[in-house]
């Protein structure tokens, strides 16, 4: 325990804490830029400098550990001048076009300029657009003219995702962030997760918008425009309208979408319930094959909802592609259902339907464009908006989300369960699958209080759980006494650790859930900025609240799901279900 003073007041801190840690704990504001709570300390921007008695120069608060007897000043004339100069120097190297920048009012560099009351650029030579923009990614644009080399994207890609698609290239004043051989991002391994975009404090990284395409579709009188919203949107969209993180805005969002002119407002959660039916029975089928029929199915089975993870697997562990569930993600199942079952029911030509989705995710844009995700060149999902894009559209429409009354999704593809809501959180797909699979096999509800399977909840990087199957129904007798072992990981760096352990023969599990982004979809690369662990926790809390308040909390109890099997698919994993709801993967490799 260290005793120290900050601005003359005494504090105590444990060893290993930095000055910034202590200041943040005590509510003493220190400006930061390169520092991010999700990432390791880099200490490169120097915006957080403080005065440590006895040090000749100012020290970075983020990179200086506290020690006993330390005397720290956080606001003196010297510090203010130094911080202001640092911000001015950062701006001297930043192409400034704030009013037409995609990160306008969402930019940490802009906020710093505001915080220091800058009214002029000290270095008059304006930074021009001298570097090429890289727009070769299917989901985002890199504009290095705005990059201040904080390396948050580099660290997010390496530390959180284990991909390392971008790094600092060259040195000194030639340094830029880019990919191998300074080639476009499209020529290296990138999983499109958008965590670089979500962690960028400037306009150097932003997603590719499809806002204008969607307005055009809405304005086209010959098109029926349906929209589906992913579970994670309702717990985060409010942040863009000044609600505190973790505020549920489901009903207001539905009203806003209807006001904007979408013909039908549906819920991706319907398709999440459908996914549980398909994926749950797929798992049971593989277990039957292994335990009763003496086959050699690919086990453990792995979830396939998260398109960043799919591409990660295609690149890094292609030998395990047969272990992936063949189920399409809920977004894609929804698109396929809209353009088949629903089109037929409504007597519409699928070609006249425009299917738009709102996703917390940039990788969903790539997923929707995969050639296998459509029929005869007509994609099942036509446009994918991120949560941030939807917020922009709502504002463009002159709507304040706060003024909206609550309303409900349209039937029948708007009906869903709490099991589908929790898809938004890491462990949620696993929990939803277990609620259904356990009941299918035993005829009883999962043995957890209020159906809350807490061992798979929470933000630990890798979670493990087991659930004993006893008293099973006759047709599942081969599962009697089997402990169903499951594992959950989020952030593909954690997925990499799980996959490496599996490859090394160190894992004994039946079913693995992987979500690409930290926290699962609620921490997706398309969610409102900025991101932080506290926000993810707040969103997760909202998601689990919505689940606990739902009328139905098990996917197989969704009445519309029962109907769609009755009227259309027959049974889970039927021939038609396979045709429309399942997919295949591509070996991509790494080098």
């Amino acid at each position, binding site marked *: 325990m260290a005793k120290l003073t900050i601005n003359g007041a005494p504090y105590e801190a444990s060893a290993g804490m930095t000055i910034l840690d202590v200041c943040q704990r005590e509510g003493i504001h220190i400006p930061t830029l390169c520092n991010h709570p999700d990432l390791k300390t880099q200490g490169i921007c120097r915006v957080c400098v403080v005065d440590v008695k006895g040090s000749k120069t100012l020290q970075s608060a983020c990179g200086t550990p506290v020690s006993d007897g330390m005397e720290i000043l956080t606001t003196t004339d010297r510090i203010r001048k130094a911080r202001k100069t640092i911000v001015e120097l950062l701006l001297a190297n930043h192409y400034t076009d704030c009013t037409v920048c995609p990160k306008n009012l969402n930019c940490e560099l802009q906020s710093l300029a505001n915080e220091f009351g800058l009214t002029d650029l000290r270095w008059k030579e304006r930074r021009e657009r001298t570097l090429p923009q890289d727009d070769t990614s299917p989901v985002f644009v890199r504009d290095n003219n705005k990059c201040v080399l904080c390396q948050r994207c580099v660290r997010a890609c390496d530390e959180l995702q284990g991909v390392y698609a971008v790094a*600092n290239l060259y040195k000194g004043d030639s340094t830029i962030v880019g*990919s191998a051989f300074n080639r476009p991002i499209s020529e*290296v391994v990138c999983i499109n997760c958008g965590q670089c975009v979500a962690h960028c404090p400037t306009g150097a990284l932003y997603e590719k918008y499809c806002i204008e395409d969607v307005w055009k579709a809405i304005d086209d009188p010959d098109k029926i425009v349906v929209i589906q919203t992913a579970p994670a949107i309702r717990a985060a969209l409010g942040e863009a309208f000044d609600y505190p993180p973790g505020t549920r805005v489901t009903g207001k969002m539905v009203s806003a979408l209807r006001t904007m002119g979408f013909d039908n407002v549906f819920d991706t959660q319907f398709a999440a319930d459908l996914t549980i039916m398909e994926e749950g029975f797929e798992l049971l089928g593989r277990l039957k094959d292994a335990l009763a029929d003496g086959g050699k199915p690919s086990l453990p089975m792995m979830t396939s909802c998260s398109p960043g993870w799919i591409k990660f697997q295609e690149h890094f562990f292609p030998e395990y592609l047969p272990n992936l569930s063949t189920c399409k993600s809920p977004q894609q199942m929804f698109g396929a259902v809209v353009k088949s079952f629903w089109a037929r029911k409504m007597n519409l030509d699928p070609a006249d339907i425009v299917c738009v989705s709102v996703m917390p995710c940039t990788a969903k844009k790539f997923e929707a464009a995969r050639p296998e995700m459509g029929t005869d060149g007509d994609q099942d999902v036509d446009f994918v908006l991120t949560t941030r894009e939807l917020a922009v559209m709502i504002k463009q429409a002159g709507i304040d989300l706060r003024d909206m009354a609550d309303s409900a999704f349209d039937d029948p593809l708007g009906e869903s369960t709490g099991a589908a809501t929790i898809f938004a959180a890491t462990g949620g797909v696993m929990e939803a699958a277990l609620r259904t699979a356990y009941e299918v096999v035993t005829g009883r509800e999962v043995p957890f209080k209020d159906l809350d399977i807490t061992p798979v909840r929470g933000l630990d990087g890798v979670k493990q759980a087991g659930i004993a199957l006893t008293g099973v129904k006759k047709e599942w007798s081969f599962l009697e006494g089997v402990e169903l072992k499951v594992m959950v990981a989020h952030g593909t760096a954690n997925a990499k650790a799980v996959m490496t352990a599996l490859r090394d023969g160190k894992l004994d599990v039946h079913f693995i859930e992987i979500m690409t982004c930290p926290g699962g979809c609620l921490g997706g690369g398309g969610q409102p900025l900025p991101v932080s662990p506290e926000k993810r926790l707040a969103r997760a809390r909202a998601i689990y609240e919505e689940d606990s308040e739902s009328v139905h909390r098990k996917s197989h109890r969704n009445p519309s799901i029962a109907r769609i099997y009755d009227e259309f698919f027959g049974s889970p994993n039927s021939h038609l279900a396979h045709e429309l709801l399942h997919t295949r993967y591509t070996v991509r490799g790494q080098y």
Partner: protein
Amino acid sequence: MLRETLLRTLDDLVGRYGKARENLLPVLQDLQAEFGFLGEETINEVARAFGLSQTEVFSVASFYHFLNTQEKGKYVIRICRTISCDLRDKANVLRALESELGIKMGETTRDKKYSLDYANCMGTCDRGPSMMVNDRLYADLSPSKAVDIIRSYR
């Protein structure tokens, strides 16, 4: 460079140094000593051998002035770029070399014999301006002395 030669050399180096991330630099140095530069194929194969991304390996290789990511001439002339050599008339030494070789800083002669590059401080500030030709250091340069030195490399 033959692919088999590259793979064999890389195999030897990985055997000698190991393939933990911290062994990347010595392996890159030795590959450069062997092949003169670290081209795309070399960087790809090193990345594969170490299980790293090409971007990470390229990032390391492009950071160090003494590692070349592009093919260089047989003799790489590196001139100190720091201020103490500037103060001792480095500019004229550089001008003389550029004129003698007919290339600009950063370029390689058409016959692939000489490349002209900067290096950061060589630690001989008291005897600047200085330059290196491959691994050999030359200090106390004047324009004519520098030209005589590179003429001795044929």
